[in-house]
């Protein structure tokens, strides 16, 4: 009896702290081309000053080929390169990874993780840039406010190298 009560009380004291969450969906579209290569993609957060507040993901060819090391084409992600990439030493744990196939890819972060832990409250933009070998390049932006007091979501649609890009912010 006493034990049960204790557990119940302690349950009240430790409030069910659901961590604030940011969930991102990025669709790499299926393209009907003769020579298809998986795109290089950079996903980052920009503050109101349009400076990079954090890199969330960079997908690139991480191995050497006869054409060169995969880092050679990172500058094709033009905006990411000038705002962040060129001062970054890749690979970066938890951020960089190999290129991904066609489909919707989900990234999820809690406010305890390094990408969001020190994010000051304010207006932000999720930016996704994609560049494909012998293909095109596209940049998609989704604005949001962090942290969210009520659940928010945002969506943008790429037209060539990116499909649907969505984000959901959970308070």
């Amino acid at each position, binding site marked *: 009896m006493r034990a049960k009560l204790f557990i119940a009380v302690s349950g009240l004291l430790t409030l069910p702290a659901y961590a604030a969450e940011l969930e991102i969906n990025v669709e790499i579209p299926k393209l009907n081309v003769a020579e298809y290569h998986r795109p290089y993609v950079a996903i980052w957060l920009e503050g109101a000053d349009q400076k990079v507040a954090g890199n969330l993901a960079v997908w690139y060819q991480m191995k050497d080929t006869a054409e060169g*090391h995969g*880092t*050679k084409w*990172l*500058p094709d992600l*033009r905006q990411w390169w*000038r705002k962040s*990439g*060129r001062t970054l030493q890749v690979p970066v744990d938890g951020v960089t990874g190999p290129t991904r196939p066609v489909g919707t890819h989900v990234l999820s972060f809690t406010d305890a993780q390094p990408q969001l832990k020190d994010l000051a409250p304010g207006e932000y933009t999720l930016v996704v840039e994609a560049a494909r070998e012998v293909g095109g390049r596209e940049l998609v932006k989704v604005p949001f406010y962090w942290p969210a007091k009520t659940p928010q979501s945002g969506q943008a649609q790429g037209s060539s190298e990116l499909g649907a890009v969505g984000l959901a912010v959970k308070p």
Partner: protein
Amino acid sequence: MKRSLILAAAIASLAVPFTAAAHKAWLRPSQTVLAGTDPWITVDAAVSNDLFYFNHVPLRLDNLAITAPDGSRIEPQNMATGQYRNTFDVQLTQPGTYRIAVVNSGLSGSWEEDGKPKRWRGTPASFATEVPKDAKNLKISQSVGRVETFVTNGSPNETALKTTGEGMELVPLTHPNDLFAGEAARFRLLVDGEPAEGVEFEIVRGETRYRNAQDEIKVVTDAKGEFAVTWPEAGMYWLEATREDDKTSLPQAGQRRLSYVATLEVLPQ
């Protein structure tokens, strides 16, 4: 009568600096923003009227100087001379900004010997030995010209951009490999290390063959020697400024012609 006309024409034609007058000299790198473990670039060097097409003569590379991001000089590789262009490769082993420049400095002139015009080209050193001390109607002019471009591997830096204090040079207030369409870039022009006011820059975007007008941008340096240009679109741009003065380094030279050319790549947003 006829002879003096020919003489006058000959002397007038000697106001030609080292690169053919009215033609554009340029260096064009294959790429200006690079990354990777060991990136290389190839540079075309030519003198022509059309940008950036090689259809006249190569630009001589006798005075090519490549400055690495740490300020040291490095050598080009795979140099080749063609009918219309010279080419060379640069291996970018260091991260940072490289400056690739051809700096020509010299004297040219004429005098009369036995009633015939004698032309001469040389340096202040060879002037003492090659030009007779009592030369008649001696007319000497000096020319100092810089043709350059910039390339960055990884993160840009500014060590190689340090000016030398000689001739015409640009201080890039906006980094030359950080240029994007629709954005304004700012530069300061120096002549012998001092800001130069009132010098006009002519700025032309490449691909002239595929349009009907030069669409050149003309801008004049202000009291601080500065000018700004907002790039209308992405592309490879050629910039030139020239100026004449009498601040020659040889007392016998009456006139000095300074010129500056840069090739800058402007990327799309």
